């Protein structure tokens, strides 16, 4: 069966021959809406559109970085892919997540369990993501028992090998999480994630909670595992430098949508979307003598419960104002932004831009009316 691709879908990287040219993971028009309920009867009065039509493909062994500010939906994308968000209770969850061609979102029972082995996650907070009452051996070994891979002595041996692989002493299996530092706990989380030899791992802000000198150790460990085991990563983070360093391709999210996506080096050199440009400009630079003028976006990310119409970025967008200044009266409208009245392009307010391929390297896509 061939699946018609929505026009917004974009491919990441060359297809690997091992899967007959098929991406390992295809996310198609993923939407996750959380209900806003009010009153005694919990009537649904609206939705927080945490993820609103996200599509991407991921070839085996590649890493896609997902960046954006809090509330942009990047974490929700990762969780929805792994089915950690349950539909029901008014939650809208649709679109497709195809893992090796099978729609993971529709799987149930034993089929779901079989596929789950292949998709794992590493969490941001190494403290709250480890059960304080289990020994490290049980934390890492539990998935092995649950999936019937190893028990008893064999399990103990496998746990020891995993601990050794992530740079911890195998004797630590008898200890408890509170005995470890943040970096060591993150290593334990990584050992747990790779215990079932998954092909795909979501890394949700894996180094944000760690000290600077420890961050690079963990990033190097994740990179080594990628090479050794041909793991495909979805790497979610807010730190642009870390994402650029670790990912083959980078997608930038704003209010539930991908606004720009390109190869990591291309995105850094030729960012086109005004939000990406501002984000790159705002990132602190390790240079005590900065030469470029920094763009500081005023205002804050609007609430995803009530996003601005058209392009959600238009109230903060420097580009649309600039273009409006040189456009005719009928192509522009006045909007009130932060108490000020500004003129912006009519199109930016009325129509939501789609991701389109730009002139330049294949795979550089951008959703902005002001970018040709």
């Amino acid at each position, binding site marked *: 069966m061939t699946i018609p691709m929505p026009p917004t879908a974009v491919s990441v990287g060359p297809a690997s021959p091992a899967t007959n040219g098929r991406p390992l993971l295809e996310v198609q028009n993923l939407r996750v809406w959380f209900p806003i309920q009010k009153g005694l009867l919990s009537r649904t009065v609206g939705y927080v559109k945490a993820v609103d039509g996200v599509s991407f493909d991921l070839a085996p062994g590649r890493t896609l970085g997902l960046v954006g*500010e*809090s509330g942009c939906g990047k974490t929700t994308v990762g969780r929805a892919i792994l089915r950690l968000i349950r539909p029901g209770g008014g939650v809208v969850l649709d679109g497709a997540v195809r893992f090796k061609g099978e729609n993971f979102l529709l799987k149930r029972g034993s089929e779901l369990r079989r596929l789950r082995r292949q998709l794992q996650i590493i969490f941001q907070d190494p403290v709250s993501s480890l059960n304080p009452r289990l020994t490290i051996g049980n934390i890492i070994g539990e998935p092995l028992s649950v999936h019937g891979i190893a028990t008893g002595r064999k399990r103990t041996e496998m746990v020891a090998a995993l601990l050794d692989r992530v740079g911890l*002493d195998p004797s630590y299996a008898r200890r408890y999480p509170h005995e470890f*530092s943040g970096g*060591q706990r993150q290593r334990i989380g990584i050992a747990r994630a790779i215990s079932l030899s998954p092909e795909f791992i979501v890394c949700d802000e894996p180094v944000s909670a760690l*000290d*600077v*000198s*420890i*961050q*690079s*150790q963990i*990033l*190097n460990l994740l990179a080594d595992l990628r090479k050794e085991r041909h793991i495909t990563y979805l790497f979610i983070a*807010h730190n*642009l*430098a*870390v994402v*650029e*360093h*670790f990912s083959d391709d980078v997608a930038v999210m704003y209010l539930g949508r991908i606004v720009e996506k390109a190869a*990591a*080096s291309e995105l*850094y*050199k030729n960012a086109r979307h005004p939000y990406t440009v*501002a*984000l*790159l*400009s*705002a990132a*602190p*630079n*390790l*240079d*005590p*003598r*900065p*030469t*470029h*003028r*920094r*763009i*500081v*976006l*005023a*205002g*804050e*990310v*609007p609430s995803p419960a009530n996003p*601005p119409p058209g392009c959600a970025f238009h*109230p*903060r*967008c*420097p580009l649309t*104002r600039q273009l409006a200044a040189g456009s005719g009266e009928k192509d522009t409208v006045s909007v009130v*932004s*932060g*108490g*000020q009245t*500004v003129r912006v392009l009519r199109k930016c307010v009325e129509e939501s831009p789609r991701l389109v391929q730009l002139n330049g390297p294949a795979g550089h896509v951008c959703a902005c009316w002001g970018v040709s």
Partner: protein
Amino acid sequence: MSQPLLEIRNLTVAFNTERGREPLRAVNDVSLSVYPSQTLAVVGESGCGKSVTALSILRLIPSPPGRVLNGQILLEGRDLLHNSERQMQQVRGKEIAMIFQEPMTSLNPVYTVGDQIGEAVTLHQHVNSQQAKEITMEAMAAVGIADPRRRLDAYPHQLSGGMRQRIMIAMALSCKPKLLIADEPTTALDVTIQAQILELLRKLQRDTGMSIILITHDLGVVAENADVVAVMYASRIVEYAGVEELFDHPLHPYTHGLFRAVPRLGQAAARLEAIPGTVPNPMQFPSGCKFHPRCAETSKRAAESSDVVQITADRKPLTVMRVCTQEEPVLREVSPGHWAACHFSPGYADAPVSAAQLDHRRQVSAESEIVGGATV
């Protein structure tokens, strides 16, 4: 040369732990100075003592278990450690104000932000409630809050993280302090909001001439805001220099390692150079130089020397220089205006031991351009 506004001399702060155990030293022999309208960044990782140093200045270390074992904290020549609690209340908020990392937990959830800023104003300034309200709104406007009259009645939970941090800054600045201590002020904020807050702090400093002690773990924040930098590791300052000098010529192996461990935008490196091992726990600091089990320099030198010892670091045997395990280096001025605490910094052996003090200002950086409207 002007006099420092605040001078810390040989500060040592210890905490009692279990009975019969040696109190652990969270801050050890720390000396630093902040000059008027200067920003001093104290940079280091968790547990290095940077926050304890800041809290000691305001005498906010709970005692017991905390205790200042030694040192002086001179604010315009007066030793704050000799102040009574009553005198300290006059200092806190009025002369030295502080903002914290997590603005949600530092604001009281059951009072409006207007009440909370107003409280600081009425406490330290002889004004009636109407004047206090005016001053409160002025302070809110100064930190870029649109429509302060409406925001006066907002409760903290109604505001975003960036807005709460602005309220904290408004509260801190309402009494026009001479020194602002900012403890990780932007760590909990998004990148674009961080840029706004840092820009705001720079602007307020230009306008009021206040001094800032900026405590952070983020080298990017240091590069863009600091005049002078103190690098702390395991309770001690290990390097102290002007910001340009530190970034151009880092001397301490720890500083070196930090710079190489951070990925830089636009400079794709295949692999990051990591500092091995973990940040040491104050309960069990290594002997001698506390960095030696993780230090690239000492193991490199040990390969060509005979005066070495074998240690176990990070589960592996390691050969290091004997002196590093036996003698803890103190901060010495190895070149004019540049202090380092490493036996192997060039010139360390003959350098004088002196309190780190540097009346330096960074070159004016490129102006920021503020674009886009607020959407609040």
